[in-house]
């Protein structure tokens, strides 16, 4: 990504984005207080949400739902309508921002071909989740208490038991853990209103008796990894590999992502999390050794390549920076599934070069002559070798372009830096097969093997 492209990206905010953001913020503030008693300010915010749906098929339903919530007598369906309206607004914001990005860097994006999904048979875990989300909306974040948080245990456990509901389970578990750690919310100096409303709305949508479309095609070819984005909360670890897939049938290369997620507990953290992903040795080898992957008949759903480790082989060395330089620009990206669209879901691989890093009031920024972009140093995982110091010493970075709180940021996935006059290169996936930094490895060894201790305890106590 060139500084001229960055200039084009950052010169303006899409039309309507600020208005949409204001409407969403009003809803988010209303949810802080809860819907048990809707005051004047919250009623106005909800009315604005309904107003923002004017001219869309959602308008009548959302207007009716807002009326019921404001009157204090509402159903789970009414809450689903509100969550849907909020998601539609943020989905539109996502589309506008991503359109601006695509125009700035010249990225081709294939439109979405798959159907939106189908209704499915009612399931008990979904019903339990909806009931909990309803109670939470009534209480508001300030009204959440220990009892309400203990009550999320049953829906989470039930959803975890069904592989098809993993998304809902992981989301609810992450939200509940955060709320639990924040009690009493009334005592918090600031409430993360946008974030919790994001998570609540998404959970409401995932808890509907509905299923997204399945895999739409299978694909074979060579996958060149660009970098790995690591996600983690107390009970989940996910790695999402961004890469360029060259199909074996000679079709144009595609920009794809593949994800593996494992359950964990919060005491397993740092580089140890890689050991929870050992069911995917081929993927881990490709990441740690920076190699290309040959994949056969993997299901592809939009830009999401479903990982099947047994259908992949590790090939020759492939430098991700070279991949970014040569293969990224012509690769065709895919549109995101409609209900997954949200500015926070924007994660576009970019290569940034020839910048200097400066410490500013807002944090580290990458700067060119006339341009600058904030670096998301709070997204550097403990499971990899990138540190704020290394990022600050770099002049070349492979990262993900993201949007949050009204500005673009870059999240580094790999950097090339000069440390003590020597070139250093570090990638998030470098430790996928074990820590390669002797100092960190020593600290790890000293802390002991959390996975082994817990597996021993599980073996002794769980099956009785």
């Amino acid at each position, binding site marked *: 990504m060139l500084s001229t492209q960055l200039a084009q990206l950052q010169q303006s905010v899409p039309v309507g984005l600020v208005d949409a953001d204001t409407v969403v913020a009003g809803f988010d503030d209303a949810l802080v207080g809860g819907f048990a008693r809707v005051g004047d300010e919250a009623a106005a915010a909800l009315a604005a949400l309904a107003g923002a749906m004017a001219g869309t098929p959602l308008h009548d339903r959302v207007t009716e739902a807002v009326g019921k919530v404001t009157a204090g007598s509402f159903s789970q369906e009414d809450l689903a309508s509100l969550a849907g309206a909020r998601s539609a607004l943020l989905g539109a914001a996502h589309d506008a921002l991503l359109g601006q990005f695509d125009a700035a860097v010249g990225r081709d994006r294939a439109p979405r071909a798959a159907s939106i999904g189908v209704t499915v048979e009612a399931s008990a875990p979904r019903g339990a989740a909806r009931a909990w989300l309803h109670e939470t909306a009534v209480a508001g974040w300030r009204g959440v208490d220990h009892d309400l948080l203990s009550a999320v245990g049953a829906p989470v456990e039930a959803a975890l038991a069904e592989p098809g509901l993993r998304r809902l389970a992981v989301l609810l578990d992450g939200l509940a853990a955060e709320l639990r750690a924040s009690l009493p919310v009334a005592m918090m100096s600031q409430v*993360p209103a946008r974030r919790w409303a994001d998570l609540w709305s998404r959970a409401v949508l995932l808890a509907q008796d509905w299923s997204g479309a399945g895999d739409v095609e299978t694909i074979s070819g060579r996958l060149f990894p660009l970098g790995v984005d690591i996600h983690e909360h107390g009970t989940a670890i996910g790695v999402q590999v961004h890469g360029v897939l060259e199909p074996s049938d000679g079709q144009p290369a595609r920009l794809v992502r593949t994800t593996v997620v494992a359950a964990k507990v919060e005491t397993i953290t740092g580089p140890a999390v890689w050991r929870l992903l050992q069911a995917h040795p081929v993927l881990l080898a490709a990441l740690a050794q920076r190699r290309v992957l040959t994949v056969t008949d993997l299901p592809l759903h939009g830009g999401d390549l479903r990982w099947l480790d047994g259908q992949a082989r590790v090939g020759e060395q492939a430098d991700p920076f070279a991949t970014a330089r040569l293969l990224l620009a012509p690769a065709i990206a895919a549109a995101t599934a409609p209900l997954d669209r949200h500015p926070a879901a924007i994660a576009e691989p970019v290569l940034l070069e020839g910048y200097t890093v400066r410490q500013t009031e807002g944090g580290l920024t990458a700067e060119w002559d006339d341009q600058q972009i904030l670096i998301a140093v709070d997204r550097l995982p*403990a499971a990899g070798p990138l540190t704020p110091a290394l990022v600050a010493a770099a002049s070349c970075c492979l990262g993900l372009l993201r949007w949050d709180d009204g500005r673009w940021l870059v999240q580094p996935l790999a950097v090339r830096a000069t440390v003590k006059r020597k070139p250093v290169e570090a990638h998030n996936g470098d430790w996928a097969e074990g820590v390669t930094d002797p100092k960190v490895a020593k600290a790890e060894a000293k802390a002991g093997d959390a996975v082994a201790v817990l597996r021993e*305890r599980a073996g002794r106590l769980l099956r009785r």
Partner: protein
Amino acid sequence: MTDADGNAWRRRSVLAVVPPARARKLAKVPFVELADGRLQGVVSSGSDIERVYVSSLVAGTHAYHCSTNNNRPCGGLRGAPCKHLEALADEAVLQYGVDRVARYLRVDAGDGVGSGTDLLARMDTRHEPTPAAVVFSRFLRHLAYLELPDSTTALPELHWFPATGAVR
């Protein structure tokens, strides 16, 4: 990043509301949590590998209890928290930091409190038997996470949960 109104969090989708738990040795106290209005957890017996103690301390009232998972009271409870409760509090402070534990239990940590044992000493604790089953089943559920199968379908909600903590 904070501003004067404490509004910096208001419109951010992605931020670390809770700092990640810190790694600690798990052999002695495999499970600690701040949940259900209690500091609670499981302490491995020093003498019998098959036995564990279930210890808990209620936030606010500071009522404590310790027993085996079969509800046999801990022999170390003689009018004061036993060594299992001290170990539990110490490990909780390692895992979450003293501020978070103190805030959850609603105790004024004050200066010079570094360990969980220090924190216990500042509380007006009293003994009140509670069934071990609730805590023990939470521990079993905790362990059961490690038995769940992996998932290879996309999980877009994880964009809200970036791995963090690279400070070395």
